[in-house]
């Protein structure tokens, strides 16, 4: 499926189930999401994480409803399954698309300005460096006898300064690699929108409405 369409669909589904309370639909969405995730052949570790990470907020919300309100078990179930639907539907989109494909699709199909597409992509590709940079900032503090905590302004200050420096380097390098905000570009890899992208998008949404309405009547 076209990456832009895929993400649009995922967000629309998430939005819709935020306002509805049908746990069967949530569950069905989670199952469909899971099946799609399995097609991307995730590692066993990732799969385990995928099951356990949502467990904490999901049970926290469900237990809170049971103990702190009189909304009853049905609503607790709705909240619980809703979180799983969010995560599995979201992961079904992210695990089957690379960020660079998404960005190229957004540029070519959704026509967002290329400066947003490549600015985001360039920054995103620095992610591994960012993780080690945060550790380095904290170590640099310790090495000078100053512990940096989550509430220390210096921690964020250093992070922003690194961002400032890197953004300048990256913007200059991209400019030097011929990137220009206004100029048109050619595309080596064409990302197309095909008729069945529309079909899947609209079809899924229609199906979702039908399901929600159907269960709502029951």
């Amino acid at each position, binding site marked *: 499926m076209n990456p832009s369409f895929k993400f649009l669909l995922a967000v629309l589904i998430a939005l819709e189930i935020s306002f509805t309370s049908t746990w069967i639909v949530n569950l069905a969405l989670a199952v469909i999401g899971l099946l799609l995730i399995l097609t991307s052949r995730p590692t066993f570790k990732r799969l385990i994480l995928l099951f356990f990470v949502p467990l904490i907020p999901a049970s926290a919300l469900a237990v809170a409803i049971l103990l702190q309100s009189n909304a009853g078990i049905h609503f607790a179930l709705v909240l619980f399954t809703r979180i799983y639907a969010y995560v599995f539907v979201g992961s079904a989109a992210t695990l089957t698309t690379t960020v660079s494909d998404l960005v190229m699709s957004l540029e070519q199909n959704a026509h967002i300005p290329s400066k947003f597409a*490549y600015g985001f992509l*360039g920054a995103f*590709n620095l992610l591994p460096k960012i993780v080690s940079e945060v550790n380095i900032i904290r170590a*640099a503090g310790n090495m000078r006898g100053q512990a940096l905590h989550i509430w220390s302004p210096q921690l964020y200050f250093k992070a922003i300064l690194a961002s400032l420096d890197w953004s300048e380097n990256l913007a200059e390098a991209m400019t030097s690699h011929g990137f220009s905000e206004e100029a048109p570009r050619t595309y080596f890899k064409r990302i197309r929108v095909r008729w069945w992208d529309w079909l899947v998008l609209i079809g899924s949404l229609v199906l979702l409405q039908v399901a929600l309405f159907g269960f709502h009547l029951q």
Partner: protein
Amino acid sequence: MATIAVNHLSFSYPTEDGQKPLTLNDLSATFPSGGFSLLTGPSGSGKSTLMKIISGLYPKFSGVITAGEVRLNDTKISDIPESDRGQLVAMMFQNPNQQFAMDTVERELIFALENQQVAPDHMMARVDRALDYVEITDLRHRQLNSLSGGEKQKVALAVIIAMRADTILLDEPFASVDPVARQLLLSKLSRLQREEHKTILISDHDLEDYDQYIDHLFVLNGTGDSLTLLDQKAAQQKMAAFQRQDTSNKQLQLPTTTDQAVIAAHQLTLTAGNATLISQPAMNFFKHHITLLTGANGTGKSTLLLAISKLHQYSGSLLLNQNEVAKMHRKQLYQQVALIFQDADQQFLNVTVAEELALSLKNSQQPTYFMDRIPGFLKQLHLEQLQDHVVYTLSGGQKKKLQILEMLIMATPVELFDEPFTGLDFTSLQTVMAIMKTVAHDCQQTMVIVSHQLFGLDALVDYHVTLKNQQLQYVGGLA
């Protein structure tokens, strides 16, 4: 082919209070078309600034041109549309990181060609050729993040070649590149100049190896108000001063049995991604000695220093004063070991030079020793006038000097230096080494220094360890 003409150029980085101190003041010079020019000058003289102006990045990204202009083949730089500029002038930066927008080597090359609106059918041929030219075809599908500094610089050159830029500017491109890769890149550049008539301008502090390649040597003076082309004789003299004194005959001692280990590795394995960098049955670094650590780009020197500082995972055992590094608390660990990062900015915590020094002195393990010596050190390093300066706007060399000084002030028993001498001009280099030697002796420190540049190091270090084929080994020779 393009002639770069600098005419009465003045440039300033405006300060917050509206003042406009001139970083470059009335400079004029012509870099001849098809020539290979080398630009040198003390730290902070404005070489990087000048190069960014020539490549059209300034004043777009920073500062203002207060007078004069730069012309490329008689066209003012500012009059060249941005999208055509890539064909005319391309720049390779000192910092090999944050130079690429995409994730893999191939995609970065394609990105550059797309920007130039090359037809998709022609792209692959140009990518193939560029990679082949720099001899990095095997890196084609690698993640850029996983490349060593030297490899990244090769990729950067490949991008420039694919873009077919006429004029190539290189701002200290070899600062993090080993001698072998440096030779390779230099010979590639020289071939580009001879066979494809590119105009090449390169800035460097280390003039070693250049004499067989360059046509012109330009010198920018310390205050940025005079840019001169040296004549043949003066150029020869300047280069001769840099002839790597033959380091091959310099001999160092090997550790003796009485030496006491401060860092001890047993069955140590270091990996990055799926590559094994170091696999070491046993190895020690010795107390109160200065040890030089060398090895080609990407062999894992930085990774080893990071592992000792608990910033990279390892398997096996790595003991610091008999304690397992991985099990030590950060606070306790960093009182015993400090890492002087390759990138000076990572070391700073405060805003001004004075604040940085004050913080170090406050938490120093030898405050009384440093209290009276700091002014002297600052003077020797030419930092005394910069006390109120914001650290992040110092020049590369100034930052490096400040960084080394403030970490020496901490007087941590074990200090690990990751390429501390890059970006330092000749005199600064000698001063820094002298100060390091004095402090290490007086404060009884242990130092491990990673360095590609070996000039004058025989006077500083006691031992030499090489990293090759995943093994660390003590050797007697310096080269």
